[in-house]
């Protein structure tokens, strides 16, 4: 049977189940009983099978009574055998037809108690007819009590234990006082051969029965311990992951808040300076301050836009506008048209280079996200080109299964100690800040997010003062999980 799985942050908590442990989906342990409902049902049916063996044994004893020196008890034992067979049939019918494994647990426990009482009654009658206090059947009373303790609440079993002891003492007393007849298997002061054989078989049956019963109980304990340990380990791991996610989320929020706060501090200070009259807004310095303040507002807007884009990519994949047969060639061509004025202004030559013939078409894509990502890459390549200009090459490669977009510039490059971190949010190299004060530090994060949501990946090579090459590889035939699930 399958385990129940509860989705955790990024791992699954598995509540293990199996016949050895006894756990099934939705199982809750009863406070008073070791067994779950379906286990109790199974056990009761199993004991019904044992009861057939008992009835057969009693029937055999009634036939072989003389051999056991019990000729007078033959009819009595036969009656007991018949009664046991009849009530066993009734119990089996009730368990199979009226009370399935998922039925009322209270009703099942009631059946278990009734079975115990009837079995004990049959046992004591058999004890009486097979020698009383010297009966070889007596140890089976103990065996039955052990079985009962597994299935039935302890307090009820204590009540039954008192009742059993009371019945036993009363029976032996009545037999001794000859109020009840004595049926002995001992003839002439010595147990008969048949009686010895019967006792031996009873002992063997009892010994193996106890071992089997104890093993079936302890093996369940062991299995449940193992599964509990595994569940605990899984839970701990899930909690650790959850805590780590929370820490990362808090860190991300803190960094984002700082990035928004910083330009706001400049804006407020600038406005206060102008309001307090430290600078005349009409003066050249005043105008420079106003222009700079407006630029800081643009920075804020750019940061907010990029944060929203990232959040949209990460959280709204299911609602993303997935489109069929999206041409990367077309996306790049549109971006070239859009950034061409900016490139001219920066004295940068934009060089498109299509390595293979044919259009790179993705089976599924979100065009706005790819446009945002590639435009970010190309815009950055232009922005961080050297002051005297240069070349930005945008290459598109294609094979049977992948499209590859490579954006290479001859700009300022990225310092070696930052290359591993540039895909993190808000990371900007010092030389980038010097070259261009404006920048959100989110561009490469957005490119990576866009690549990943399309089943692809992004990599970067760079040398400070030489240039940077960013490579985005996208599978042509990736079907996003959101489409499969939808």
């Amino acid at each position, binding site marked *: 049977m399958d385990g129940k799985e509860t989705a955790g942050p990024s791992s699954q908590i598995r509540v293990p189940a199996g016949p050895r442990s006894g756990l099934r989906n939705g199982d809750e342990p009863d406070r008073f009983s070791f067994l779950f409902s379906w286990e109790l049902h199974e056990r009761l049916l199993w004991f019904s099978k044992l009861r057939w063996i008992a009835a057969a044994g009693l029937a055999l004893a009634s036939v072989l009574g003389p051999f056991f020196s019990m000729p007078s008890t033959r009819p009595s034992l036969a009656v007991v055998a018949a009664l046991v067979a009849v009530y066993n049939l009734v119990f089996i019918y009730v368990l199979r037809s009226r009370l399935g494994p998922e039925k009322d647990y209270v009703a099942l426990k009631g059946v278990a108690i009734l079975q115990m009482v009837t079995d004990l009654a049959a046992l004591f009658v058999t004890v009486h007819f097979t020698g009383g206090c010297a009966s070889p059947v007596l140890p089976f009373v103990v065996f039955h009590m052990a079985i009962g303790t597994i299935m039935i609440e302890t307090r009820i079993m204590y009540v039954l234990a008192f009742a059993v002891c009371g019945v036993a003492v009363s029976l032996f007393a009545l037999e001794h006082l000859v109020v009840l007849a004595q049926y002995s298997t001992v003839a002439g002061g010595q147990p008969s051969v048949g009686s010895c054989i019967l006792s031996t078989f009873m002992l063997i049956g009892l010994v193996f029965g106890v071992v089997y019963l104890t093993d079936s109980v302890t093996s369940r304990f062991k299995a449940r311990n193992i599964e509990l340990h595994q569940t605990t380990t899984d839970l701990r791991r899930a909690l650790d992951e959850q805590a780590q996610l929370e820490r990362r989320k808090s860190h991300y929020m803190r960094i984002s808040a*700082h990035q928004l*706060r*910083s330009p*706001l*501090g*400049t*804006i*407020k*200070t*600038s406005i*206060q*300076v102008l309001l*307090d009259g*430290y*600078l005349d807004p009409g003066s050249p*310095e005043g105008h*420079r*301050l106003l222009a*700079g*303040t407006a*630029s*800081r507002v643009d920075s804020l807007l750019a940061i907010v836009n990029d944060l929203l884009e990232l959040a949209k990519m990460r959280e709204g994949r299911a609602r993303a506008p997935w489109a069929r047969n999206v041409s990367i060639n077309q996306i790049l061509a549109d971006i070239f048209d859009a950034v061409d004025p900016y490139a001219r202004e920066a004295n940068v030559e934009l060089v498109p280079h299509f390595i293979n013939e044919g259009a790179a078409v993705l089976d599924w894509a979100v065009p706005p996200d790819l446009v945002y990502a590639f435009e970010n890459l190309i815009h950055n390549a232009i922005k961080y080109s050297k002051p005297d200009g240069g070349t930005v090459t945008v290459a598109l490669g294609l094979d049977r299964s992948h499209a590859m977009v490579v954006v290479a510039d001859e700009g300022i490059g990225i310092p070696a100690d930052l290359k591993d971190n540039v895909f993190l949010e808000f990371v900007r190299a*010092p030389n980038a*800040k*010097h070259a261009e*004060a404006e920048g959100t530090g989110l561009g490469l994060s957005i490119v990576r997010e866009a690549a990943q949501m399309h089943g692809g990946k992004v990599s970067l090579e760079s040398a400070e003062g030489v240039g940077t090459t960013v490579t985005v590889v996208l599978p042509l035939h990736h079907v996003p999980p959101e489409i499969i699930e939808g």
Partner: protein
Amino acid sequence: MARPTILVADDDPIFVVSVVSVLGTRYDVRTAANGTEALAAVDDDPPDLIILDVMMDHMSEGFDVARVLRRDDATALIPIIILTGVDRVYNLRMEVDESWVPADQFFEKPISPEALLREVGRLIGPGEEKS
């Protein structure tokens, strides 16, 4: 009499314009865009007061510059004001690597021009209005 000089180190040029416009009414102000430039400027001509932004080219660069200045006998007594936009000032005090933060005062951005002038006046005197 020469006016007291102040060195302002901050990587935000617009913020620097604001601070210079406020302090320039009473003091002579020089600027630096990062810690390296700030230390070079102090070497050339030690100012009467140094105002450092915390985050310039890297996190806590302002603290690093302040520690360097404090360890040098020639600059150890120059008053230092640290500007931060990272956190509230009391959080910042708790989060630095060393328990000793080598600054005479902290200001959280955005700053109040009046409060800045008042604090600078307390540290190096009221200065002199530009004639």
